[in-house]
C-alpha cells in the first residue's frame, strides 16, 4: 500500500522529479483520511480552549445559603452564563445574537427562575437556573424597553411587569402568558422610566416630562385599570432613572445636583402630593465639585417595600449611609464612608447588610460589612481585595451574604474591575478565582518567540561583537571555560531532574509554567501570545498551556480606540530584550500614543518616546534596524510628515540613504481614496499616485497586503509538460475589496482590485456582480481568495484569483515595481461553499515548503482547515494527461466540508473573530490561535508531520532489530572467519 516511500528513496538519486514526486506524495497522503483528524488520545494534548463571557452587566448569586455554588451573569456580549463560584468555571453559557437584537436589557432573579428582557424589549425569557434551560419565551409588543420588576400578589411573586416606552404589560412568571397590557397615557410627552411594586395591589409607573413635572400612575394588578394618576411639579427633575430611587414605604427619593438637595415624595399618597426638599447642607454633606450624586437603594424582596436606608454617593470615593425616618420627610445620616470606592447592599434572611470597599494601602482594598440599621461595623468581616498595579480599579461589587451556623452573617464577594476582570473573594481574604473577561474581546495579537534559556543565552552573548571588542584574549578564554562549566552544570541539573522525576508517578510531575522558567523549546513550538483587548488590557499568554503569564492594563483607552501591535525587536538579539510597540489611536481626537513593552515579561520599556502632537494616520514598520537591532517604525501624521521611532542619528542617516525606496499608501474609506506617497530625505513626503473610487457607487471595505514574514519556497508551478509557470510574486501588491453602496440584489456587486502599492497601478480588477458582502479574504503568495454572498443564487461562494508571470521570468534577481512592463496573467475560479463564514486566514510555515491550507472560521464555531489545492483556478473541467500529471483535482463547483477537516473537533469557538497563524521551528507545523468570544490554540500540519516521528513510533522494535542485526553480522563474520581458516587447513 505504501509504494511512495520507495519512490522517495529513488528520487534522492535524481533531485529532478523531486518536487513533483513530493507533491504527489503529499497528495497521496492527504487522501489517506485516517490520519487527518485528531486521535482520541491527542485531544487536549496540543490544543486548549478558554471560554469567556465578556463584561458583566448584571450578576446575581443563587439563593442565599452558604453552600450555594452558582453565580449568574449577563454580559455586554449578549451572553447569559452561570459560573461555579468555587472554581470560576463555566457551568453553562447561552450565546445570543450579536448586536442590538440580542442585547440583554435586564436580568432579574427569583428563586429558580431568571427573567431576562432581550433585544431592547423584544423578548421576555425565563430560564431555569439549575440546568440553564429555557422555561419559556414571550414576544413583547414593540417599543423600547424602560424597566422591569417582579410583582407579588399576597406575598408570593407571581408576575413580572415590563415597562416600555408607551406601554406596560404584566406576565405570569409560571408560563409567560400576558395578564394584561395597557397603553400609557400621553406617552409622547412623558418619558416613563421606572416601575415600582412593593407588594400592594397596584403597580406604579413613574414618568417625567423633563424640567417640568413628574407623573405617577397606579395600575390595578387585576385588570390593568388606572386607579390613580398624579402629576407633581418638578422643574428640577430631568430623569427619574438616574436621580431617583424608591425607598421605605413607597417614598420616592430624588437628588438634584443643581440645588444640592434631596427631594422626597410619597408615591401612594391619596391627595395631590408635593416634593419636600431637604438640603444636603442641613445634613452636613458636601458634594465633590462636578460630581453627579448617585442614590443606591435596595429592595430585598419584591413582595415587600424597599429598605428605608440608602446610600448617597457624593464623590468618586465618598459615600454616606442615610436613613429615612418613618415620617417620610426627615433623614438621619448613619455613617459617612470616606474614602470608599464601592458600596453594595446584601440581604440574607431578615438581615440586610451593607458592604463597603475602602482603600487600605497601595496594594489592597478592604471590604467590610456594616449593619444597615445602625451603621455599625460587623466584627470579623474584613476581606482584602488585592490591587495589582497592572489591573484596573474596582468597578462594581456583588456581595453574596449568607447566615452562618452561629447566625452571624458571612459573605463572599465578587469584584468587577474596570478591565472587566471578575475576582471572587472568600471571607478570610482569599482570592478564590479570577476571570479575565477582557479576553472575550481580543482586537489584535502577535506571537513572539520565547527567549533562550539562561545558559544558551550566555553562550550566545559570549562571542557577541561587543564582548570581543571589550575583552582581550585571556579573559575570553576564561569566559569560555566558565561558560562550559555552566553548561555542564545545567546538563547535570537536567539529568538529575529527569532522574528525580522518573521515580515519581506521572500525575505528580508538575509542569507549571512561570515567567522565570520560560524558555524556548527544541522546535520553537511554545511561544508567547501577546493579546490586545478592546478594554485596553494586554495579556501575555503561554501558547502551550494557555496560562496568563503577565497582564498590563492601559488606563484611559477609549472604548472605540484603534490598536496596532508591532514587534520591533524579536528575541533573536540577545542581550537586547525583545520589544513590542502598541499604537493606540483615540478615534475622537485622532491622537495616538505608543506603549513600548517587553513582550515576554510585559514590563513597560523605559525608552524615550517620540512626541506625537498631531493625529497619526498610519504606521509603517521598516526592515531597517538601528544599532540596537530594533526595527524602525515610521508614523505618518495628518500633514503627511513622518516621525521615526527610534530616531537615533544612525537611523536618520539610514533613512536618508534609503528614502527614495520607501513608499507608503493610505486609504481613506470615507472618501474612496487610495493614495501613495514617497519619502523624501527630510522625512516629509510627496504624493506620487492617487486612485479614487467614487463613494456614491462603492465603498472600500478592506485592504490587505502580504504578510511580511511569509516565505514562498517555490517561485513557480510545474506544468504537466514539465515547463514552469512562474508566479507573480509582487511584494507590494495590495488587495482592495469594495462593496457597492446599492444593496439591491440585482445591482449589488463586490469588487476586488489588485493594486501595486508603490506605483498605484491597478494590476487586476475583478467585479462580482449580484454579490454582497461581508467579504472575507486572504491575500498570500500569488493568490487572493475571497468569499461573498451571491444574491442571485442565494449562496456563499468562494472565488480564487491567481497571478502568474508566464513561462519566462522578467527579472529573476530583483523585484522592482517601477520596472514591470508586463501585466501578470490572472486566472480565476469560483466555487460554492455550503456555509457562511466569519473569518478566514492562511496557514504559515517557516520556509513555505509545506502546502498551504485556509483556516475558515464558521458561525457554528468550527474551524475548517481547507486545503488550498481545492481552491486552484487551474483545476480542469476536462481531465487531461497533463492535468493528471500536475495532480490537479477536476473542477467541481461544490466545495466539500468534511468533518475531519475541523481542526477543533468539538471544541467550538464561539463567535470567531480572527484567526492568527504563526510558523514554528518545524517546517511541517503551523501554530493557530482562533479568537472571538473564546480563545482556541492548536497546531496544524497541512502536509502531515513529515519532519517528525510519530508519537507511537516503535523505538524499541526498531532499535532491537538494529541491535539484533548488528550482533548477527558480528557472529556470522566470526563464523565465516573460522570456516575460512578450517578450509585453509584442509
Amino acid at each position, binding site marked *: 500500500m505504501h509504494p511512495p516511500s520507495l519512490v522517495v528513496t529513488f528520487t534522492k538519486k535524481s*533531485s*529532478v522529479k523531486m*518536487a513533483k514526486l513530493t507533491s504527489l506524495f503529499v497528495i497521496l497522503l492527504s487522501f489517506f483520511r485516517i490520519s487527518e483528524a485528531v486521535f482520541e488520545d491527542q485531544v487536549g494534548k496540543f490544543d486548549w480552549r478558554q471560554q469567556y463571557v465578556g463584561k458583566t452587566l448584571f450578576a446575581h448569586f443563587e439563593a442565599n445559603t452558604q453552600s450555594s455554588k452558582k453565580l449568574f451573569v449577563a454580559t455586554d456580549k449578549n451572553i447569559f452564563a452561570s459560573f461555579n463560584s468555587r472554581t470560576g468555571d463555566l457551568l453553562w453559557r447561552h450565546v445570543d445574537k450579536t448586536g442590538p437584537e440580542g442585547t440583554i436589557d435586564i436580568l432579574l432573579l427569583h428563586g429558580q427562575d431568571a427573567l431576562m428582557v432581550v433585544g431592547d424589549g423584544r423578548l421576555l425569557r425565563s430560564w431555569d437556573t439549575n440546568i440553564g434551560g429555557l422555561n419559556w419565551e414571550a414576544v413583547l409588543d414593540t417599543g423600547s424597553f424602560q424597566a422591569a420588576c417582579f410583582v407579588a400578589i399576597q406575598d408570593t411573586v407571581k408576575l413580572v411587569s415590563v415597562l416600555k416606552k408607551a406601554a406596560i404589560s404584566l406576565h405570569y412568571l409560571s408560563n409567560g402568558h400576558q395578564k394584561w397590557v395597557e397603553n400609557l397615557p400621553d406617552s409622547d410627552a412623558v418619558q416613563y422610566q421606572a416601575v415600582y411594586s412593593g407588594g400592594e395591589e397596584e403597580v406604579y409607573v413613574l414618568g417625567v416630562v423633563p424640567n417640568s413635572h413628574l407623573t405617577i400612575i397606579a395600575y390595578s394588578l387585576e385588570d390593568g385599570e388606572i386607579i390613580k394618576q398624579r402629576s407633581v411639579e418638578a422643574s428640577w427633575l430631568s430623569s427619574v432613572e438616574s436621580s431617583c430611587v424608591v425607598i421605605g414605604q413607597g417614598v420616592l427619593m430624588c437628588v438634584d445636583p443643581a440645588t444640592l438637595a434631596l427631594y422626597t415624595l410619597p408615591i401612594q399618597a391619596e391627595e395631590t402630593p408635593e416634593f419636600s426638599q431637604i438640603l444636603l447642607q442641613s445634613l452636613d454633606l458636601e458634594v465633590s465639585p462636578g460630581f453627579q450624586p448617585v442614590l443606591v437603594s435596595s429592595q430585598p424582596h419584591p413582595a415587600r417595600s424597599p429598605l428605608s436606608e440608602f446610600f448617597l454617593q457624593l464623590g468618586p470615593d465618598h459615600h454616606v449611609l442615610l436613613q429615612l425616618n418613618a415620617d417620610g420627610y426627615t433623614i438621619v445620616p448613619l455613617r459617612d464612608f470616606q474614602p470608599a470606592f464601592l458600596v453594595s447592599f446584601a440581604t440574607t434572611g431578615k438581615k440586610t447588610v451593607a458592604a463597603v470597599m475602602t482603600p487600605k494601602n497601595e496594594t489592597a482594598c478592604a471590604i467590610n460589612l456594616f449593619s444597615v440599621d445602625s451603621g455599625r461595623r460587623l466584627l470579623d468581616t474584613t476581606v482584602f481585595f488585592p490591587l495589582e498595579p497592572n489591573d484596573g480599579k474596582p468597578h462594581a461589587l456583588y456581595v453574596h451574604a449568607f447566615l452562618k451556623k452561629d447566625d452571624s452573617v458571612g459573605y463572599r464577594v465578587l469584584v468587577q474591575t474596570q478591565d472587566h476582570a471578575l475576582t471572587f473573594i472568600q471571607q478570610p481574604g482569599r482570592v478564590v478565582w479570577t476571570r479575565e473577561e477582557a479576553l472575550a474581546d481580543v482586537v489584535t495579537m502577535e506571537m513572539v518567540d520565547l527567549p533562550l534559556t539562561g545558559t544558551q543565552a550566555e553562550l550566545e552573548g559570549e562571542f557577541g561583537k561587543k564582548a570581543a571588542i571589550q575583552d582581550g584574549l585571556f579573559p575570553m578564554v576564561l569566559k569560555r571555560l566558565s561558560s562550559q562549566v555552566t553548561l555542564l552544570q545545567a546538563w547535570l541539573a537536567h539529568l538529575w531532574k529527569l532522574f528525580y522525576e522518573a521515580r515519581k508517578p506521572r500525575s505528580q510531575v508538575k509542569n507549571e509554567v512561570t515567567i522565570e522558567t520560560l524558555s524556548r523549546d527544541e522546535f520553537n513550538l511554545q511561544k508567547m501570545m501577546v493579546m490586545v483587548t478592546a478594554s485596553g488590557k494586554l495579556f501575555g499568554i503561554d501558547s502551550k498551556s494557555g496560562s496568563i503569564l503577565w497582564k498590563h492594563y492601559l488606563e484611559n483607552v477609549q472604548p472605540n480606540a484603534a490598536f496596532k501591535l508591532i514587534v520591533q525587536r524579536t528575541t533573536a538579539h540577545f542581550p537586547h530584550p525583545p520589544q513590542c510597540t502598541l499604537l493606540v489611536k483615540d478615534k475622537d481626537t485622532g491622537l495616538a500614543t505608543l506603549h513600548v513593552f517587553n513582550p515576554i515579561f510585559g514590563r513597560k520599556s523605559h525608552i524615550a518616546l517620540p512626541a506625537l502632537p498631531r493625529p497619526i494616520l*498610519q504606521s509603517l514598520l521598516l526592515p531597517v534596524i538601528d544599532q540596537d537591532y530594533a526595527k524602525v517604525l515610521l508614523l505618518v501624521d495628518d500633514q503627511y510628515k513622518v516621525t521615526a521611532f527610534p530616531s537615533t542619528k544612525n537611523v536618520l542617516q539610514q533613512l536618508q540613504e534609503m528614502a527614495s525606496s*520607501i513608499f507608503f499608501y493610505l486609504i481613506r474609506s470615507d472618501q474612496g481614496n487610495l493614495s501613495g506617497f514617497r519619502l523624501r530625505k527630510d522625512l516629509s513626503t510627496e504624493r506620487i499616485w492617487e486612485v479614487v473610487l467614487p463613494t456614491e457607487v462603492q465603498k472600500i471595505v478592506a485592504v490587505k497586503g502580504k504578510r511580511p514574514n511569509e516565505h514562498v519556497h517555490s517561485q513557480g508551478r510545474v506544468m504537466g509538460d514539465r515547463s514552469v509557470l512562474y508566479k507573480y510574486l509582487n511584494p507590494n501588491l495590495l488587495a482592495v475589496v469594495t462593496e457597492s453602496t446599492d444593496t439591491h440584489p440585482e445591482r449589488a456587486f463586490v469588487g476586488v482590485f489588485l493594486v501595486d502599492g508603490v506605483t498605484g497601478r491597478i494590476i487586476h480588477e475583478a467585479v462580482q456582480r449580484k454579490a454582497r458582502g461581508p467579504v472575507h479574504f486572504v491575500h498570500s503568495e500569488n493568490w487572493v481568495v475571497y468569499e461573498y454572498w451571491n444574491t442571485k443564487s442565494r449562496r456563499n461562494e468562494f472565488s480564487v484569483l491567481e497571478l502568474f508571470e508566464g513561462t519566462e521570468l522578467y527579472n529573476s*534577481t530583483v523585484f522592482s515595481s517601477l520596472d514591470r512592463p508586463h501585466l501578470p496573467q490572472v486566472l480565476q475560479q469560483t466555487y460554492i461553499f455550503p456555509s457562511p463564514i466569519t473569518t478566514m486566514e492562511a496557514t504559515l510555515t517557516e520556509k513555505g515548503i509545506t502546502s498551504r491550507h485556509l483556516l475558515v472560521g464558521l458561525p457554528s464555531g468550527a474551524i475548517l482547515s481547507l486545503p488550498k489545492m481545492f481552491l486552484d483556478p487551474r483545476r480542469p473541467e476536462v481531465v487531461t494527461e497533463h492535468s493528471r500529471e500536475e495532480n490537479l483535482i477536476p473542477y467541481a463547483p461544490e466545495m466539500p466540508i468534511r468533518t475531519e477537516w475541523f481542526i477543533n473537533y468539538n471544541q467550538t469557538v464561539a463567535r470567531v473573530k480572527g484567526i492568527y497563524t504563526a510558523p514554528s521551528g518545524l517546517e511541517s507545523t503551523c501554530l493557530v490561535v482562533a479568537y472571538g468570544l473564546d480563545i482556541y490554540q492548536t497546531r496544524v500540519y497541512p502536509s502531515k508531520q513529515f519532519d517528525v516521528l510519530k508519537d507511537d513510533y516503535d523505538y524499541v522494535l526498531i532499535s532491537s532489530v538494529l541491535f539484533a542485526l548488528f550482533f548477527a553480522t558480528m557472529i556470522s563474520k566470526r563464523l565465516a572467519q573460522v570456516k575460512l581458516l578450517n578450509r585453509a587447513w584442509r
Partner: protein
Amino acid sequence: MKRHHYETDHPEFYVAMATPGGQGGGALSTRGGARRMKWALELTLGNARGRGDRQSNQGVVMYPIGYSDKPVPDTSIQESDKNLVEKRCWDVALGPLKQIPMNLFIMYMSGNTISIFPIMMVCMMAWRPIQALMSMSATFKLLENSNQQWLQGLVYSVGNLLGSALAIYKCQSMGLLPTHSSDWLAFIEPPVRMEIMGGGMVL
C-alpha cells in the same frame, strides 16, 4: 558461444596429443568409474600427483627418461595462436556493443514508469558502462597483445559510451534528467525587493 581452451586441467595431454586445443582428450580419460573399460592404455604412464589417479590402484609410477614436469611450449603453432589472441581481443572490444540490443529490449520491456524495477534496470544499465570505462586501463592490458590494440580500445570505449548514452536516453524518457526548467525551480532564489512599502487604511 564457442570457447577456446589454451590450457587444460590435464597437463598429461600436452605430451600425448601435443595440441593445446585437444578436446577429445576427455574420451581417453580413465577417471570416472562409470566409463571404466576392461583395459586401458595409459599413455602418460600414470601421474602420481593427480588426485584422481591416486584412487586408481596403481603403484608408484616412474617418469620416463626425458620427461619434463613442465609443459614444453610448442613454437610451431605461433601463427594460429596469434589469430586467436586477435579474435579474443576483438571479442573483448565488441562486448559492449553486443550488449546494446539486449539493453534495448530490456528498456522496451521495463517501460517509463518510476518504480523499483525500472529504476534498478536503469541503474544497472548506467553503471556497467561507467564501471567499464573506469577500468579502461585493465582492459587495455588485456588487449596488450593485439596488433589493433588502439582500434579495439576505441571500439570498446565507443561501445560503452553508446551503452551509457542509452542509459541516459532511458533516464530522459523516464523524466529523470534535469533538462526542463521545472527541474531547476527549487534553486531559484526569491528576487530581492527593491522598494519598501507599507501603510493601510487610515486608523
